[in-house]
């Protein structure tokens, strides 16, 4: 039930772009994205509720392809503060509302 994230790790220079992918074997109701800094709790970034929906959060945006059961997180012109582990979370269509299954995470490191 756990979604699959790729890549496992990304190393960037400041100003470079990155894409993190999340795919599920089950039909999805929604996709969440979270960022976790080392030693801290995960922090909610955004939720995508409809197929094709794209949302933005500063220079971080995401898309949701309901048909393919996939979501992608786009980090544009990355900043040092973007470093952390990114998790997608999926809510399955027809399941208990709000129950989230998290991927294993993508570790993003941004160097100056």
């Amino acid at each position, binding site marked *: 039930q*756990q979604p699959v994230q790729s890549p496992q790790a990304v190393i960037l220079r400041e100003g470079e772009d990155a894409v993190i992918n999340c795919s599920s074997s089950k039909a999805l109701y929604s996709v969440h994205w979270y960022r976790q800094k080392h030693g801290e*709790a995960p922090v*909610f970034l955004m*939720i995508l509720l409809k197929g094709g929906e794209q949302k933005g959060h500063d220079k971080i945006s995401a898309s949701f392809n309901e048909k393919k059961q996939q979501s992608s997180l786009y980090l544009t012109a990355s900043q040092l503060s973007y470093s952390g582990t990114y*998790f997608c979370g999926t809510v399955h269509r027809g399941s208990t*509302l709000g*129950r989230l299954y*998290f991927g*294993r995470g993508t570790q993003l490191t941004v160097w100056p």
Partner: protein
Amino acid sequence: IAGITQAPTSQILAAGRRMTLRCTQDMRHNAMYWYRQDLGLGLRLIHYSNTAGTTGKGEVPDGYSVSRANTDDFPLTLASAVPSQTSVYFCASSDSLRGSIDGYTFGSGTRLTVV
């Protein structure tokens, strides 16, 4: 500041001992969750509660129990701790009636080591 309080922050526990991790929220969220986080495995759902008085099992419930006597508190109990329960435990909550539009709010975590 509204949020989730977890206690203790960290604990070293002898195998076979009983332990309760505490979680309290002040946002009046209906739904609460317990996750464990292990390196390379991400966050895995242990138990959840959609409303006071109801609980359900997640992906990895064995060895854990929960109760939800009221809206604010959601304690997690390890009846007889084993070393494989060494992990970081996060409590989270969401307003499930809004379909989790605002996402989950997480507590700061409890780092548990079972020796």
